[in-house]
C-alpha cells in the first residue's frame, strides 16, 4: 500500500497516479499494450479480475491496473514511470494526475463536499468525453439533490435548478428581453431590490394605483422576476432577473377582483406583447365545466405565442379533503400550477385535478415557505409590519416559479406558446410518489447548461 502524503494545501495523495488515455484510444488490449509500451511498465487489465473487482492488494501485486471501461489506469509509484510522464502527456496526449485520498461525503465539511462533488463531476465528464457522450447543449441538470452545491438561494430556486445544484452545470439564463406580466395586487415600486429596474404598469382597479398595498403581488413578482443579488445579506429569490416586468393590478389592495378586471389585465398584457402571464389568483368552482371565455382567450393567446400560468388554488385540506382546481386555472389552455414543499410533499392546501376532461394540475412549483419580496406597507397576512422580504405559502407562490422559469426557457430555446407549454411539461422532474392528479408532469425545472470541461493541468 502506498503511503499517504499531503501537499501544501492539505490535499492527501496515495502516492499512485491516474492516467487518462486520450480520446481516440481503443479500449482493450491495444490500450493496455500502448500504455505498457510507452510507460515501460507491466500493467494489468481490470478484465483480468472477476467482475472487474480488484483490491489494493491486487494493485500492489503489479505496476498498475487499466480500467477498461473508462480508459483510466491506476499506476503505482515507480521511478521509471515518473521519468516518462513528460513523454506520455506531451507526445501521447495522456493526462496524468496524482491519485487523491477520497473520504465519504458525509464526513466532510460543506466546502469540502462541494469540492468533492466537483471532482466527481469532472471525472464523469472526462469519462463521458472518452465514451462520446458529453453534451454541451442546453439540457436538464442531473438530479443531485437540492443542497449539493447551490448556496445563497431559496430552496425553491435550488429544487427547480434555477440555481444548479451541481458545479458541473450552470444557468446562464436571465429572461433578458422576455416580457413577463404579473397580474395581481400590484407592485411596490419603492422596493429596494428593484431599484433601477424598468417596470411597465397599469391598474385595472378603479380608484387604486398600481402601488401594492397588500404585498401579494410584490411577493409573486419577486419570485418570477426578482434580482439575482438582492442588496443586503439576503438569499437569491428571483428567477428571470433580467426579464421585462409588466405589472397589471387586477386585484384590489384587499386581494380580490372581478373576471372583468382580470380579463382586462390579460387583454392589456397581450397588447404589450407579453409572452408569459402569471396569475396567482382564482375562485372556487361551484359547478361543472370551466369558463368558455377564459378558455377561448387562453387558447387564442397560446396559439399566438403567449402562455398563461395560474395558481391551482388553495381550497384543499389534505389528506382528507381535496378540492378541484380553481377557476380560471381549470381551463385546459391555462397552465394550472399546484404546490409542493421542500420535501416534495404536495402542499396541504393544493387543489387536485379531479376531472378527466378539464381542471387538471399541469405542473407543480415550490409553494411552502417561499421567501420573496414584500411591499411596504402590506397586509398583516404577508408578515410583520415593516418587513420588505418574507415567507409565504400558497399555489400563488408556485405559479410565479413556473412563470419565471418559462421566461428562462423562452430565452434558452426561443419556444413560445404551445411549444413552450410542451417544453415545461416535458422537462419537469417527475414525482412518481404522487398521483398525476396532484402534481401533473412534476416539478418545474429551469434550463441548465453543462459546463465545458476544463482539463486540469498535471500537478507537476
Amino acid at each position, binding site marked *: 500500500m502506498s503511503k499517504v502524503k499531503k501537499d501544501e494545501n492539505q490535499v492527501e495523495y496515495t502516492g499512485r497516479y491516474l492516467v487518462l488515455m486520450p480520446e481516440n484510444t481503443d479500449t482493450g488490449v491495444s490500450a493496455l499494450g500502448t500504455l505498457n509500451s510507452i510507460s515501460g511498465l507491466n500493467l494489468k487489465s481490470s478484465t483480468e479480475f472477476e467482475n472487474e473487482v480488484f483490491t489494493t492488494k491486487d494493485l500492489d501485486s503489479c505496476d498498475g491496473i487499466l480500467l477498461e471501461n473508462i480508459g483510466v489506469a491506476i499506476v503505482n509509484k515507480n521511478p521509471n514511470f515518473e521519468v516518462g510522464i513528460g513523454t506520455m502527456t506531451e507526445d501521447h496526449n495522456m493526462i496524468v494526475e496524482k491519485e487523491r485520498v477520497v473520504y465519504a461525503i458525509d464526513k466532510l465539511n460543506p466546502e469540502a463536499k462541494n469540492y468533492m462533488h466537483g471532482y466527481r463531476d469532472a471525472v464523469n465528464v472526462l469519462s463521458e468525453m472518452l465514451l462520446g457522450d458529453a453534451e454541451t447543449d442546453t439540457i436538464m441538470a442531473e438530479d443531485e439533490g437540492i443542497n449539493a452545491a447551490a448556496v445563497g438561494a431559496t430552496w425553491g430556486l435550488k429544487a427547480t435548478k434555477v440555481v444548479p445544484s451541481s458545479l458541473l452545470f450552470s444557468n446562464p439564463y436571465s429572461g433578458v428581453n422576455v416580457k413577463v406580466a404579473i397580474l395581481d395586487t400590484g407592485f411596490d415600486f419603492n422596493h429596494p431590490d428593484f431599484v433601477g429596474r424598468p417596470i411597465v404598469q397599469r391598474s385595472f382597479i378603479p380608484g387604486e394605483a398600481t402601488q401594492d398595498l397588500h404585498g401579494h403581488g410584490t411577493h409573486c413578482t419577486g419570485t418570477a422576476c426578482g434580482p439575482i443579488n438582492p442588496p443586503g445579506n439576503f438569499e437569491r429569490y428571483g428567477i428571470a432577473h433580467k426579464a421585462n416586468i409588466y405589472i397589471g393590478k387586477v*386585484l384590489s389592495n384587499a386581494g380580490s377582483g372581478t373576471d*372583468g378586471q382580470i380579463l382586462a389585465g390579460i387583454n392589456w398584457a397581450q397588447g404589450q406583447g407579453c409572452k408569459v402571464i402569471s396569475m396567482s389568483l382564482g375562485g372556487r368552482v361551484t359547478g361543472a365545466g370551466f369558463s368558455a*371565455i377564459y378558455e377561448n382567450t387562453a387558447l*387564442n393567446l397560446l396559439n399566438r405565442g403567449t402562455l398563461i400560468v395560474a*395558481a391551482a388554488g388553495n381550497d384543499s385540506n389534505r389528506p382528507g379533503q381535496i378540492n378541484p382546481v380553481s377557476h380560471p386555472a381549470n381551463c385546459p389552455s391555462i397552465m394550472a400550477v399546484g404546490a409542493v414543499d421542500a420535501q416534495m410533499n404536495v402542499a396541504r392546501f393544493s387543489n387536485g385535478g379531479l376531472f378527466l376532461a378539464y381542471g387538471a394540475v399541469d405542473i407543480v412549483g415550490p409553494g411552502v415557505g417561499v421567501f420573496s419580496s414584500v411591499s411596504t406597507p402590506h397586509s398583516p397576512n404577508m408578515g410583520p409590519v415593516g418587513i420588505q422580504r418574507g415567507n409565504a405559502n400558497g*399555489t400563488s407562490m408556485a405559479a410565479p416559479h413556473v412563470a419565471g422559469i418559462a421566461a428562462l426557457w423562452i430565452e434558452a430555446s426561443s419556444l413560445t406558446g404551445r411549444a413552450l407549454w410542451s417544453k415545461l411539461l416535458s422537462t419537469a422532474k417527475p414525482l412518481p410518489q404522487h398521483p398525476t392528479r396532484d402534481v401533473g408532469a412534476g416539478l418545474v425545472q429551469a434550463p441548465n447548461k453543462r459546463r465545458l470541461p476544463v482539463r486540469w493541468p498535471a500537478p507537476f
Partner: protein
Amino acid sequence: MKSKWLILTTPEDFSNVSAMVSKRKIEILNHLENIFVIEINTTKKKAENLKNVQGVLSVEEEGYLSIQ
C-alpha cells in the same frame, strides 16, 4: 337587477356584436379588443338573449376572484 357580464365573440364579429349590444341600449363597460371580449352591465334576461346574436360564442356572468 343588473350585474356585470362578459361576452366572447369571434374575432371577425367583434365590432358587429358591439354595435348590436349598443343598439339594444345595453351599457358597455369595456371593450377588450385583443381578446374579443365585451364587458356589459345588464339584467340576466338581456344578457342571455345575446347568446343568439351572430358571432357571440359565450356569455358569462362575472364572478369574484382572489389571491391564492
